[in-house]
């Protein structure tokens, strides 16, 4: 079959990489140790088949390898004592017996390893067969992708990079194989130049598709991650009820709220703080009638230690600074939780290089973390003064932008009008926004409304989520209460937004690190949502409409001091360089670690760069494509000139070979198509009668001599070039 050349080696490497992807998750997901032995075994078998050793040698080498490592792993003493062999063989015999008895649990580890070796052996042979004999790898490539994605979805295995690796290796293998298949089918002799012509676009295509796949924004999954659910099922905690049972916890998709919940008390993070506080994750601003979405994305980024560009407490409000430490339970958790009034994030572990940028979306106030295992947040606890809060009685352009106001008071057009009526009833008599909001908040305290996670309706096609809760069901959990309050206030023109996050959690222990701090355990059951109302000069003030929940906010009622009356200024945190904290001696020890982190950081940086610039990149890409498309469309006007220039200084008579074919291409583009079965002479006559010349026939005569007689008069190109140039000029549109 194929020779032992470089492309064959490349194919073997690609096949090996694909097979390796099958082995990678095994170590993580099963209790298999020493996986490298199996990988080396794979490597060995690929090498052997690449060098086309006689089957007997291959067999011997692999068998010895298998025996050697089984002995190494499971038996004592020297390999050459052979006494172990006897016990291994008796073990084999026993295991075969158990296997036929289908007593799988009885199988010994050495037998399992042995079987695994055999499986790999077969797989190695299959890959070899697919790659070099069948020359078709798509099926295997596809199976690999399915395998990886299934593992990614249903287990802890994180296949983000595995998918990228598989796609690169798989595309490369498929591309190369199709090249060889075409070569074989068409019986063309492949020249190295030809190979290059194929491989260069292939590499480009792979790079482009991988880049595009990595960079392009991906929609969040519409289903919740099944892994915790599967774990819960495994632990026997699943209780199902209702048609659409959601799992409690933090999900990114809120465009369809409603339906019952089941509990999930897996820890999300632990927080060390001075008191129970609400933890924000993100906010949403657009109510759709069924749920909340974000009206747009405004991604920017900031560095560790910088002021976090989140607008919550204006400078006019008195506040005391605090820090809290967060320890996520799962470092894969992609989002940072933070209290209202966040100032900066610091102390991230593992250490990030100084210039690491955190992506943040200033509309949703969602901050992405880089798999931090620990971080601290400096935040301010506001101390609102009630007279300041009560100052606002209506919208004033001097206090907030028109656009801003409209964005946070926007409602769906078909919102039932009785919501507004109800709100006006509730707030009748209250003059200012704060008291109106308080009145609505109090309204939910009535006994008509009850907190319930199970018997919660899912709004139908024509129902409004808020309307259904307020007037029909009157039962629900935080989403019902918070959404209702936010929407109700909007109906009377008060800007609100909907906040998602976690409540303060359960007390775990007193902190050993700091005296006044307490460690809280926050689980998925603590996922929560509440409302923030925008009051000019006071910022986003949180409210808690949900029955049975308390958000501890300090509001000073009695005194008559007023805080400063500064105008609203949008927060523009100055980007300060964080101080270098690493001392010299720790530097030495961490050097090795840093190197690894450096690579990770490089990757993160590029990812961030693409993330922040992708709109720009997509636009410029589209522009480039459009430009190329236009160039292509009008190629008749400029391309012939390039051709003329290119052939002006050619001397050899053989130039006619390429020149004539190019002329055919140009004539074809011009619209004078040559039918496949039309002879050149016939076509030339047609062209000549079209342009009323004789040039094409004369040129064709020369080309016929070249093509069908392998003969060209010496120095003929001089004359032919004139004919050719005249003809090319005629094709200029």
């Amino acid at each position, binding site marked *: 079959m194929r020779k032992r050349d470089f492309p064959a080696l490349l194919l073997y490497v690609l096949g090996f990489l694909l097979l390796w992807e099958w082995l990678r998750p095994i170590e993580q997901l099963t209790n298999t140790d020493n996986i490298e032995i199996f990988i080396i075994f794979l490597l060995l078998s690929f090498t052997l088949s690449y060098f086309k050793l006689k089957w007997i040698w291959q067999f011997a080498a692999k068998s010895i390898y298998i025996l050697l490592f089984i002995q190494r792993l499971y038996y004592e003493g020297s390999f050459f004592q052979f006494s172990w062999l006897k016990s291994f063989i008796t073990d084999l015999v026993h295991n075969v017996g158990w296997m036929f008895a289908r007593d799988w649990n009885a199988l010994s580890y050495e037998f399992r390893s042995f079987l695994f070796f055999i499986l790999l052996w077969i797989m190695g042979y299959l890959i070899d067969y697919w790659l070099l004999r069948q020359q078709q790898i798509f099926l295997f490539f596809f199976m690999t992708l399915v395998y990886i994605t299934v593992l990614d979805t249903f287990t802890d295995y994180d296949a983000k990079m595995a998918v990228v690796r598989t796609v690169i290796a798989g595309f490369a293998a498929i591309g190369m194989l199709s090249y060889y298949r075409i070569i074989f089918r068409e019986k063309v002799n492949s020249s190295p130049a030809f190979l290059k012509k194929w491989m260069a676009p292939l590499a480009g295509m792979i790079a482009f598709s991988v880049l595009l796949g990595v960079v392009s924004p991906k929609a969040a999954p519409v289903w919740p991650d099944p892994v915790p659910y599967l774990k819960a099922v495994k632990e026997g905690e699943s209780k199902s009820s209702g048609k659409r049972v959601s799992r409690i916890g933090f999900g990114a998709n809120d465009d369809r709220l409603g339906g019952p919940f089941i509990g999930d008390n897996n820890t999300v993070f632990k927080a060390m703080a001075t008191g129970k506080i609400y933890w924000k994750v993100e906010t949403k601003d657009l109510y759709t009638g069924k749920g909340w979405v974000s009206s747009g994305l405004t991604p920017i980024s900031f560095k560790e230690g910088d002021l976090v560009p989140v607008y919550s407490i204006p400078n006019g409000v008195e506040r005391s600074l605090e820090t809290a430490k967060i320890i996520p339970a799962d470092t894969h958790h992609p989002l940072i939780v933070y209290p209202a009034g966040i100032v900066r994030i610091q102390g991230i572990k593992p250490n990030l290089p100084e210039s690491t940028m955190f992506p943040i979306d200033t509309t949703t106030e969602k901050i992405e973390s880089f798999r931090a295992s620990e971080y601290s947040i400096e935040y301010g606890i506001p101390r609102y003064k009630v007279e300041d809060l009560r100052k606002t009685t209506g919208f004033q352009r001097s206090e907030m932008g028109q656009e801003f106001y409209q964005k946070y008071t926007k409602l769906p057009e078909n919102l039932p009008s009785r919501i507004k009526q109800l709100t006006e009833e509730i707030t009748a008599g209250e003059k200012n926004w704060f008291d109106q909001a308080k009145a609505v908040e109090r309204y939910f305290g009535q006994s008509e409304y009850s907190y319930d996670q199970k018997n919660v309706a899912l709004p139908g096609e024509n129902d409004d989520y808020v309307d259904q809760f307020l007037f029909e069901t009157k039962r629900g959990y935080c989403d019902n209460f918070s959404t209702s309050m936010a929407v109700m206030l909007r109906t009377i023109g008060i800007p609100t937004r909907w906040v998602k996050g976690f409540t303060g959690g359960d007390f775990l222990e007193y902190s050993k690190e700091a005296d006044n701090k307490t460690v809280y355990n926050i689980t998925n059951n603590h996922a929560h949502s509440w409302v923030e109302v925008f009051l000019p000069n006071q910022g986003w003030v949180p409210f808690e409409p949900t029955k049975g929940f308390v958000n501890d906010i300090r509001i000073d009622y009695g005194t008559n001091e007023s805080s400063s009356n500064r105008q609203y200024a949008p927060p523009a945190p100055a980007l300060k360089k964080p101080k270098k904290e690493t001392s010299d001696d720790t530097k030495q020890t961490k050097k090795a670690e840093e190197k690894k982190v450096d690579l990770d950081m490089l990757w993160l940086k590029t990812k961030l760069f693409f993330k922040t610039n992708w709109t720009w990149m997509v636009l410029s890409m589209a522009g480039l494509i459009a430009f190329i498309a236009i160039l292509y469309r009008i190629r008749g006007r400029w391309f012939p000139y390039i051709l003329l220039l290119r052939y002006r200084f050619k001397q050899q008579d053989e130039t006619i070979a390429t020149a004539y*074919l190019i002329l*055919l291409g140009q004539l074809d583009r011009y619209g004078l198509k040559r039918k*496949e*079965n039309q*002879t050149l002479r*016939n076509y030339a006559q047609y062209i000549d009668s079209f342009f009323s010349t004789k040039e094409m026939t004369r040129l064709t005569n020369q080309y016929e001599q070249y*093509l*069908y*007689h392998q003969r060209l008069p010496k120095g003929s190109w001089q004359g032919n070039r004139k004919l050719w140039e005249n003809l090319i000029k005629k094709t200029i549109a």
Partner: protein
Amino acid sequence: MVKEQINQTIDKILANIEKVMIGKRDVAELSLVALLAEGHVLLEDVPGVGKTMMVRALAKSVNANFRRIQFTPDLLPSDVTGVSIYNPKEMDFEFRPGPLMGNIILADEINRTSPKTQSALLEGMEEASVTIDGVTHKLQKPFFVMATQNPIEYEGTYPLPEAQLDRFLLKMKMGYPEHHEEIEVLDRAQRVPPIEELNPVIDLEGLRILQNQIKDVFVDDTMKRYIVDIVNQTRVHGSVYLGASPRGSIALMKAAQGYAFMYDRDYVLPDDIQYLAPFVLSHRLILKSQAKFEGITAEEVVDQIIARVPVPVQRLVK
């Protein structure tokens, strides 16, 4: 077709033929191609359209020995090849050559005679020799057979088997003359037939030299590939039961060489092949009976194939 400069000698021969034949230049040309390529021609047409006249004019032009065999059901092989007769004077058997011992032979209504006699003729055509009473007699060179068969009358005929049709280089139809041409035919018929006054253009030796020159006409690999592509297509065509054999490929190449030579070219063009393919290939195909019922003819099949096979317009990648 592009009108090209024609070879001078050939042009004279054609002019000679045209003195007696009105119109039908293409038939004359094709006959000459077959003569030059050392092949034989099967003319399929009704009697009275001037087949004999044309062959005789051709024979006269090359100063060849012209024989005519009228095939009848009772004709014996020895009537064609010749017979050994006992000569009482010499006390020995003496070979009396039959009409096959000529240079240019008109085998009229070949499908009227028994297969035995047919095969005697066809064997001679193929082997260029006949064996009588154990003695092999070489046929004269050049040796050119123009056979005719009447496609209308099937009563009492022995249709030639396909294997034997294969031995003809070209098969063609003569067709009726045009209206004005036929009037001229009548004009000439009133005068003395001019056939007797024709002067030879070349002699047999000259003809043999021409035949040898044809072998030097260059056939490029692209053209060989084109020929094989076309012939291959006849083997896979949906209406064809049996396609052309490699002998068909050889015939197409030889004919193309002859045709190129006729137009004073020393290399073969795809145009030559396209023009000749129907004449060379159509009698070598056996159509499926269904195709025959649908009224598809072998010529149509060849035309379809020519329309399908792409003409090579660049050198092969080596």
